[in-house]
């Protein structure tokens, strides 16, 4: 729960800043790091690509910004009130459905297309510096894993060497997985599920002492994050 408070605080911080602007009789604004090629830096030390420190300001009293501003605050409040405080998760689509409603007295919707709410959630990720999963917006669950590894997932201990043909179904949020025991030399990752099934059938992971992971297509955020975690430990 300690962690969750941090996320709630970050979102509230965003709201408090806006309130401060209003109290100072200033045009309320939100500072958003720019996500464009012009604001991308290669970090030599960590050998990763990182966001630079250029920011854009989103104002409420601006004809071009106001709707986006409203969307940002509205969705931030949804994440805080409906998800984090009640400890529930929702998919992008679900957040879109919660946010989609008509503004009173108009025929304008807060969001019309899911792409709008998706964009705002991305904005909130960079504003708070928290990942979407940390904000309780999960991605689709996809992918499987087998191998000599024991995980703790929501209190259940799972031995991935005893899960038959299907293997362990990787959840969309992998931040909270705990590695209890790892007894493998390497991880073999493949996009194609068919290859995974064949290698599992052949018990390739036993002969070569490795962990097999597939994502059934493009790598999901869950598997990427899981990959970072297992690389680090």
């Amino acid at each position, binding site marked *: 729960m300690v962690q969750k408070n941090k996320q709630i605080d970050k*979102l*509230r911080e*965003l*709201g*408090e800043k*806006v*309130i401060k602007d*209003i*109290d100072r*009789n200033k*045009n*309320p604004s939100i500072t958003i790091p720019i996500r464009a090629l012009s604001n991308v830096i290669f970090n030599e030390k960590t050998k990763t690509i990182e966001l630079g420190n250029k920011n854009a300001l989103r104002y*409420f*009293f*601006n*004809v071009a910004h*106001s*709707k986006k*501003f*409203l969307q940002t*605050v*509205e969705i*931030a*409040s949804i994440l*805080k*009130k409906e998800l984090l405080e009640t400890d529930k998760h929702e998919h992008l689509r679900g957040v879109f459905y919660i946010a989609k409603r008509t*503004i*009173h*007295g*108009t025929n*304008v919707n*807060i969001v019309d297309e899911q792409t709008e709410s998706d964009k705002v959630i991305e904005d909130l990720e960079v504003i708070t510096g928290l990942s979407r999963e940390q904000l309780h917006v999960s991605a689709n669950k996809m992918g499987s894993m087998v191998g000599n590894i024991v995980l703790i997932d929501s209190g259940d201990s799972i031995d991935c060497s005893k899960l038959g043909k299907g293997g362990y179904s990787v959840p969309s949020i992998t931040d909270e997985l705990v590695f209890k025991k790892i007894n493998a030399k390497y991880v073999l990752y493949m996009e194609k599920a068919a290859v995974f099934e064949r290698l599992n059938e052949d018990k390739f992971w036993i002969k070569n002492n490795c962990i097999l992971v597939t994502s059934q297509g493009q790598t999901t955020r869950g598997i990427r994050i899981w990959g970072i975690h297992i690389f680090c430990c």
Partner: protein
Amino acid sequence: MKEEVPIAEKLAKEQREISVSQFFTKNKHLLGFDNPRKALSTTVKELVDNSLDATEEINILPEIIVEIKQLNDTRFIVTVEDNGPGIVKEQIPKIFAKLLYGSKFFKMAQARGQQGLGVSSSVLYGQLTTGKSAVITSKISRNKPAHYYELQIDTKKNEPNVIKDMIIEWDKDHGTKVKIELEGFYQKGKQSVDEYLKQTAIVNPHLNLIYINPEKYKMEFPRVTKELPKKSKEIKPHPYGVELGVLMQMLQDTKATTLQSFLQNDFCRVSAKVAKEICKKAGIYEKSRPKRIAREEVENLLKAIKETRIIAPPTDCLSPIGEELTLKGLKKEINADFYTTVTRPPSVYRGFPFQIETGIAFGGDIPKDEQIKLLRFANKVPLQYQQSACAITKSVINTAWRNYGLSQSRGALPIGPVILLVHIASVWVPFTSESKEAIAHYPEIIKEIKLALQDIGRKLVVYIRKHIKSKEQKEKIDLFEKYIPELAYSLSKLTNHEKDEIESKLKKLLKKELPTLEAENGAKE
């Protein structure tokens, strides 16, 4: 053995002269009498055109009264009365009851009529369909009596047949009144008499027109300017516009005694130097007698003309409507939000000067989601038929209207709340047929029309952008008021501050920010 008659002799007996009137009896469609409906509107058109030409000739403001009386389902009497100069007694029968008789055919001057066919063909049509005579009353001055004629056309001889010739009282200083009875069909809407008169009123803002339709409803098209259009001047033909047969005829008819003086005097823009150059290029002695030049030599002469640089004909002979008067005309007859007009500088095709004018009415009562309404005019006469065959239509279709704020699919007229007027003024408008319905596709003409349309398109798009954008922006500003409670609600959820408190503060802030927001709008325009 019986001697056989050669077949050629038999055939020779069948060969006979055809009079023009007989020819047109069979080819009514060539003159715009294809069907009863068109016949009615063509008759009105020919009579009104003549009246306008006549009043323009003597520089007075035209007062025209048009009346159509319906006798039964298909029978109508058309009466057109004007305040023109009138017609001298001797000329009346020939003007109204002899085809191809007129003053305008040989004149190189801008006029509505060209061929001397219009009125007499209406008379002929009336005569053919009803057997009734045309009734003409004309008076040339206050001191002279009015002449009353009942006329028919002798279709074999193409000569007038005077049925009645009287002197009557007419309480008018001068003018002409023509009454023709004919088979017709009256309908409102597109291509109707009503529409023709309305369009005529647009391009003739100096005209005062009273129209009584078959339903006995009286419509008035009031005059909006007392300014008379610039009188068109007559010019001599330009050498570039002349063809072999015409040139040969001119050589025969000329009063000049030498070829050089013929070229100098009978054409425009030919100086002594240019005349000598032409003679030299053609290899003909410049002092030759024009009447004695052989056919082959005429061909050389024509070739030499084409090879010689001659300045374009003078263009001050044209009488465009003018940007200001076109604007007045549009405003008078069309209810719209925005009007603009463009008059191009004169240009030349085949040695004939011409000038293009366009006007646009946008918005207002004009339907939004339909193709634009195109009004075509030639020498201030509305063209109502054969829209698709006309060079004007082609030019409009070939203009990229999307650049000018209208939507347009390929090969079609653009879509939008627009009435587009295009007028071509020329000393000789190249029609595709005698009924004067469509303009021939001369590249020079199409190019000029397109330039005019692009000019006016640029004016239109400036308005559209400004108008539509400012409207959108205003709506957005109104939205702020609706956004404020929403933002207050979201913020209170996010921070536990009181919703009402945030809302009232935001409302205050809006008042403060509003001038800046509106200024931003202005800047964006």
